[in-house]
């Protein structure tokens, strides 16, 4: 467990339905918070990495315009993308650039203004999210793919719609406490179970909402972190993996291979096991995604994830508190910003600065961030 690269600053804008400003102004909100958190100025930043799903922007190559607005010229900047996991990919790249010695301080800015394009345009892009040659021509969308995973999980393991609803109930409980979340109302079990069907067996409350938002993470080399940060949070493990984009290339749909492989790599690098994790943020774009994450991350054995939520073990006070900031289900899912928001929550937990949602004595935390429907998987293990 080496402590070579640390996170020294975190920031996030409010996640909102429709941000009333430009993407550069949205990015600035997360940037300012992270810079003030780290206590540094723009001249300290050696490079920036901008993370987003570019099909939502009218601006081509937004990394250039955002780096300019943040005052980060002439330092290098570029964009990275792995759809919904773009900002944890950015963090993986930032880690590499620091560990390799190219840079000492790297800023990772994730953003998405999903409302930048019209709703019709958005519906059009959704249709192009899967393999456009072999799957999109049948009329596919993200909820449908996750629904097929849910159906397969139910068939393999006997999990139920109620298990999924229980996950949403937990998300809403914590979402109420998160002032940066887009959805802050209680969802009762019966509300979740009685909601309209989107793609069977997923109903309205099984799905997270689109949102506009930005997140910002500042990473530093060991030397700079020790010099600058009161409470550095160290990158202990990083794992990344993929699965074929087309479902035809996958072994089974009752879990996500990319998450399982990424987790194995992250645990091995950190030298820890699932039992060592005190608090986790998992990618719950749909309730079924959280259920599969329990198993793919080793918090439960294959098919035993439902028992965790039934027993309340993923609440604060349980064996492994998961998504105690409300998750994507409550916060909303501004694609490029999501992973950075998850990392921010874990950093605050490990610093003991999480307020009402603090998991007592959290020392090791985990982030699980998935791009596409199990196409890209990033797992990050952080420690204080």
């Amino acid at each position, binding site marked *: 467990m080496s402590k070579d690269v640390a996170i020294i600053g975190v920031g996030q804008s409010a996640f909102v339905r429709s941000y009333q400003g430009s993407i550069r102004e949205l990015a600035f909100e997360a940037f300012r918070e992270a810079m003030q958190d780290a206590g540094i100025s723009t001249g300290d930043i050696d490079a920036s990495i901008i993370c987003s799903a570019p099909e939502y922007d009218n601006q081509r190559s937004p990394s250039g315009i955002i780096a300019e607005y943040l005052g980060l010229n002439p330092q290098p900047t570029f964009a990275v993308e792995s759809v919904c996991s773009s900002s944890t990919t950015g963090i993986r790249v930032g880690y590499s650039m620091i560990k390799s010695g190219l840079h000492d301080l790297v800023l990772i800015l994730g953003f998405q203004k999903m409302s930048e394009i019209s709703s*019709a345009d958005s519906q059009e892009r959704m*249709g192009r999210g899967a393999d*456009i040659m072999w799957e*999109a*021509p*049948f*009329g596919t969308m993200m909820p449908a793919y996750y629904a*097929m995973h849910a159906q397969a999980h139910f068939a393999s393991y006997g999990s139920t719609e109620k298990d999924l609803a229980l996950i949403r109930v937990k998300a809403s409980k914590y979402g109420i406490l998160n002032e940066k979340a887009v959805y802050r109302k209680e969802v009762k079990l019966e509300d979740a179970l009685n909601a309209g069907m989107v793609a069977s067996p997923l109903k309205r409350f099984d799905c997270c909402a689109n949102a506009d938002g930005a997140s910002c993470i500042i990473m530093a080399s060991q030397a700079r972190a020790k010099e600058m940060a009161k409470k550095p949070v160290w990158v202990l493990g990083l794992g990344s993996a993929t699965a074929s984009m087309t479902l035809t290339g996958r072994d089974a749909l009752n879990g996500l291979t990319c998450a399982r492989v990424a987790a194995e790599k992250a645990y091995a690098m950190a030298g820890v096991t699932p039992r060592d994790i005190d608090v986790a943020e998992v990618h719950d774009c749909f309730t079924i995604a959280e259920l599969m994450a329990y198993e793919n991350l080793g918090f439960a054995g294959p098919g035993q994830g439902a028992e965790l939520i039934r027993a309340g073990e993923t609440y604060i006070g349980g064996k492994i508190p998961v998504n105690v900031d409300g998750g994507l289900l409550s916060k909303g899912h501004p694609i490029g910003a999501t992973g950075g928001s998850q990392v921010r929550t874990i950093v605050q937990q490990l610093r003991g600065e999480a307020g009402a949602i603090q998991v007592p004595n959290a020392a090791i935390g985990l982030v699980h961030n998935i791009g596409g429907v199990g196409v890209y998987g990033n797992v990050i293990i952080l420690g204080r």
Partner: protein
Amino acid sequence: MMGFEKFGHKSFTSQTKVNAFVAALESNELKGTKCISCGNTYFPPRADCCGCLGSDMVWINIEGPGNLLSYTRVNYAPTGFEKDVPYTLALADFNGTKVFGRLSSAIAKEETMVVMSLKAAVVNLPDGQITYEFIKA
């Protein structure tokens, strides 16, 4: 136009080296490809083999019966598919080759279940597009 734009309820791309897939559908056959050098088989069909880096392929038939691996009945659709809802998307296994597509609307909701036996059938759509769907075997 290369021919591939004819495939599917809605097409997103027209150019591929495997557009003969559409001609096969027109002859009522669902086809994948097989690498002559190393024997790897591919569905969806591919022009190139990532196993041996070869690009000499022959067409092979995907034949039933197969089994339903998973499915979902969707009530919302992306642009261009709105008039089709609800429809059921499915993944099926044909002797180890997986195929993605729609389940025939002739299969009732109640009888749709994982592992049910299926075969693929070509569908000529009213607007001239061509596709395939899964029907009861």
